[in-house]
């Protein structure tokens, strides 16, 4: 793989995006259905903001990478605003397709794999020397790692704060909730990585 020097993203673009993130987070916080759950859901958001800001110089993403992160932020903040079990889009889906539970959380797990894989791929490309397949596997592992940590955090929250934790966990009566969530993220990531691989093959030939 030839060393690709990414086109640097102008600082103005990043500042504009940061402002948009603040607006989205503020809009999600106003009249949030359950403020305690909102705070729990936004702990990962804070970590993501810090990571993106700190790495904006040392390992910058492309415009596409930042926009994909933003798309995921919007989906997650919608879930945080309504709490995942009660997002209207999920309730609408349940009505249309006769589901027994609100599947918005599954959709966001899938979206996590689908949207975050490319930014991760961009970010960790510089760490993998002259290797193609290991980089793809590393990205898949990182997506699964986040999935596992999120599920563990959910379970911990339930032990520490049973009321808010139950909403945060969003198990909704599915005994294999954690496995299904992680499987959705894995599937999303596999699709995204296939797209990246196909796009790169076409560019090289």
């Amino acid at each position: 793989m030839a060393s690709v020097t990414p086109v640097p993203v102008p600082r103005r673009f990043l500042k504009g995006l940061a402002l948009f993130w603040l607006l989205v987070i503020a809009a999600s916080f106003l009249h949030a259905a359950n403020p305690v759950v909102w705070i729990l859901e936004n702990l990962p958001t804070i970590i993501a903001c810090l990571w993106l800001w700190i790495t904006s110089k040392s390992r910058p993403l492309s415009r596409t990478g930042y926009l994909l992160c933003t798309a995921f932020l919007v989906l997650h903040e919608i879930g945080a605003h309504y709490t995942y079990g009660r997002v209207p889009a999920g309730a609408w889906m349940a009505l249309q397709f006769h589901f027994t539970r609100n599947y918005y959380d599954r959709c966001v797990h899938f979206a996590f794999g689908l949207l975050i894989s490319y930014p991760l791929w961009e970010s960790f490309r510089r760490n993998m020397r002259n290797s193609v397949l290991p980089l793809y596997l590393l990205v898949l592992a990182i997506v699964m790692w986040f999935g596992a940590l999120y599920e563990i955090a959910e379970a911990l929250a339930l032990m520490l704060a049973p009321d808010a934790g139950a909403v945060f966990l969003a198990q909704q009566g599915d005994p294999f909730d954690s496995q299904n969530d992680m499987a959705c993220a894995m599937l999303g990531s596999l699709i995204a990585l296939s797209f990246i691989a196909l796009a790169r093959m076409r560019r090289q030939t």
Partner: protein
Amino acid sequence: MRNGETSPSHPWFRPGLAILFAVCWILSAIHPVDMGVWLLENVLTLQAVLWVWFTRRLLPLSDLSYFLIAAFLLMHEVGAHYTYELVPIGFWIKPWFGLVRNDWDRIVHFAFGFLLVVPCYESLRRFFNGPPWLVWLAPSILIAGMSAFYEIAEAYANLVLAPYTAAAYLSLQGDPFDSQNDMAMAVAGSMLAMTIAALAQRRGTLSWQA
């Protein structure tokens, strides 16, 4: 570790380890508690053995790594022989820690992280370069990823094979957060091992090629 260098191996170490492992594996196959569960659990062993065999030239590991892989697989074979929730060691330790279930599977999940993070580190180090914290964290990420994948495979095996063996294979034993606890053990094990290795490296007691 710079491209493809591993510490020199004793000429008898790898064949000896392979023979020892094969003998123990055959012992675990003799009169297992439940043959169906034994077969199911050995899908994992088969995958591991095939991986080790086919990467022996492409990604050669150190003697220590091969030893740790064999040690982990034998712990797993103990679970496969007795089925995880009936392993005698799990019953012995129950009163010591006031456990409500047979926690041998938890111990093996911990061992998965603690022992196999070493071959993960060695394999990854050939490709991966970066700041030290990331070099030490990345193998743990691989362990967590594999652990999550195992939990998914376990759950789906349960759905497919529900009436027969999978309840024992899944070994929930009434723990609603079984999958989270299992993964937490693996992540904790791998992070502990990497912390020890990083500290030893810094003090100079370990010269692992980092």
